[in-house]
């Protein structure tokens, strides 16, 4: 009796909720359709495919966890992990530091701020495009602008940054750091939120520039840093376009730019191993989830909310 009364109450409650919110849900419908048809659906099918052998052209065959097991002793998979981690752990901090530095410069109350803001944002708009990746190749390549400059000004015979396996990844990292615009805009907004009184008070107390930066700016900005860090990390793990274009889709030379997603793409679309590629995609999801969890988990130690996190 008690049970049914409870469920009855629940259904009444849901009915009321529906009545109240039907219109908003209706407005959300297109979004829901998109999520289910274009995101959740393919995700579930890729989860299924990750347990199969699937060449895309003939029906898939269930092979259990074999794809996952194979990943562990695939040297190219390990190489792709190495490349991706190098990229993420170099590009994300560099990009954030760079974005913060520029944001602080722009926060000095200079004139024509909107102009600068726009100018520095442009690389972010262009950055993902094929044209920029091609341009990058030209700039950092053997006879490129950078090397011409080094040769004529310093007389240094520099290597071909793009075609040398030692440096190729760093030219891609540089490309990413250059696209600091979106992080910068968010930092800039965050900086403007910091009350001036804090700086004034500390100045009266004799705090120097460094002191003010580390004891006021960084703590006050930490929620924004946290946000930028999570977003950039997730994006960086999934980087694809620059490596694809700069290495001609092959991840070379000697797999030095074989990004995780690039290898995934190669396996799936060029080598007819869509099952393996799907397993890789889920592997990536797990990796991203772990790192995101770490950042969230540690956030209480370093992210300050003005209201004490309440």
């Amino acid at each position, binding site marked *: 009796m008690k049970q049914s009364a409870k469920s009855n109450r629940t259904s009444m409650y849901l009915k009321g909720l529906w009545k109240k919110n039907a219109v908003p849900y209706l407005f959300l419908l297109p979004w829901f359709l998109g999520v289910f048809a274009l995101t959740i659906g393919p995700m579930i099918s890729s989860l299924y495919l990750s347990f199969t052998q699937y060449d895309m052209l003939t029906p898939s065959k269930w092979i259990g966890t074999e794809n996952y097991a194979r990943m562990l002793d695939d040297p190219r998979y390990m190489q792709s992990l190495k490349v991706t981690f190098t990229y993420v752990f170099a590009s994300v901090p560099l990009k954030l530091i760079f974005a913060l530095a520029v944001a602080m410069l722009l926060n000095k109350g200079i004139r024509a701020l909107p102009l600068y803001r726009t100018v520095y944002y442009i690389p972010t708009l262009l950055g993902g495009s094929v044209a920029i990746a091609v341009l990058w190749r030209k700039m950092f390549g053997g006879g490129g602008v950078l090397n011409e400059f080094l040769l004529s000004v310093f007389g240094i015979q520099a290597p071909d940054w793009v075609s040398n*396996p030692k440096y190729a990844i760093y030219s891609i990292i540089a490309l990413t750091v250059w696209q600091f615009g979106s992080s910068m805009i968010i930092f800039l907004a965050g900086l403007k939120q910091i009350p001036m009184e804090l700086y004034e008070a500390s100045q009266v107390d004799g705090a120097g520039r460094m002191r003010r930066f580390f004891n006021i700016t960084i703590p006050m900005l930490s929620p924004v840093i946290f946000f930028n860090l999570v977003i950039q990390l997730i994006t960086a793990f999934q980087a694809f376009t620059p490596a694809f274009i700069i290495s001609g889709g092959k991840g070379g030379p000697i797999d030095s730019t074989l990004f995780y997603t690039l290898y995934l793409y190669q396996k799936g*679309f060029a080598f007819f191993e869509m099952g393996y590629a799907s397993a890789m995609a889920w592997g990536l999801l797990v990796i991203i989830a772990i790192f995101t969890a770490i950042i969230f988990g540690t956030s209480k130690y370093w992210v300050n909310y003005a209201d004490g996190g309440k």
Partner: protein
Amino acid sequence: MFKNRMLWSSLLVTLMIFLAACGNSSTNSPSGSNKGEEAADKKVELRMMWWGSQARHEATLKVIDLFEGKNPNISINAEYLGADGYWDKLNTQIAGGNAPDLIQLGNNYPDYVSRGTLLELDPFMGNEINLSDFDEAIATSGKLNDKQYGINLGSNALGIVYNTELIKKAGMEPPKAGLSWDELEQYSKELVAKLGSGYYAFADQSAFTHYVGHYVRQSGKALFDGTSISFDEADMTSWFEMWKRFRDEGIIPSAEKSAAYLEVAPDNSMLVEGKTAMVVMWSNQLKAFQEAMQDELEMIPLPSGGTEKGMWIQPSQFLGVSAKTEHGKEAAAFINFFVNDPEATAILSSDRGIPGSKVVREALKANAEPIVLKTYNYLDVAAEQSREMDREMPNIAEWDAALKNAAQKIAFGAASAQESAQEALKAAQAAAAKAK
């Protein structure tokens, strides 16, 4: 303030889910397959997909227009792109049940036959498709297990293309047709010595699959003999060691330069830039390279050596029909038009290789521009140095990637010739084993 934080974190979570899921969205194009059971007076729509250069796109589109003009009830939608990404796109479309009706294929077409994606053309042979003017060997080159799956669009042969001006500049005689590997090396040393620094005798093509094929065939072997890999570690090791020596002698460019200049298309070539004197390429590429540069190019057969002829005439491109098509007849009629019609074949010229039909060939030869004529003449020369071709290695893209890695490891000093040889051989065996 509580509200504020809720907002932040919910925004974060939403964004996170969205970003993490981004990579997964599929890219199926919305245009589905044709609805079946169309009335007879309704227009038949076909889709055709090919890869190639701008010149090929223009010629092919013209031929499609011509065909549509003569067959008002058929319209053909063209999808064309460069060689990069072609197979990825094709595979994706086939997987999505959305394959084009007419598909341009290479010698990898058995990969598609074994996966049941190509239509058997035998019912149309002698009806819609007439290959009576074709050379027997070319006509049957599209046959697998005695069934016709593709119609050949052109034949090519590998050869050494050299820059006559650069050789004149060095004050040397042009390289002789039929020179051996040793003679090529000696010749190159002299050439580089005379040209000075910054110039190279030939390109580093140690990772060119078909060049490796030529090399192993010279000792009576093959990359793939139809059932399994038929070369061994020693073959690969000696191949890689030879190229290492070339590099040490300075007759080929450094590892870095070779990684930057792929020499597969004129826009990325030291031959075109006038820095490298010789490059190995397919005969149908000669025209595109010549058009990209001033200095005159000539073509001679690949280096000779070993106990057997290494070269072969390769029927290199095919037109096949999707197994899922609902208009096999119309597709077959188009193929026939594509390879036999005098007007169409004149437009297409020899861009996909030398046509298989004798009649077409004679007609083209009569009006050919000099560079095309050069290709024709070269194919006659190459034929004398050739023996029967082998079937292409299954899943060749995989071996290709591994070969490139293995060769670059040696060039950048990251592996010995023997280690790389083992790696390359293993990849070949894995690629071939997957087909079973």
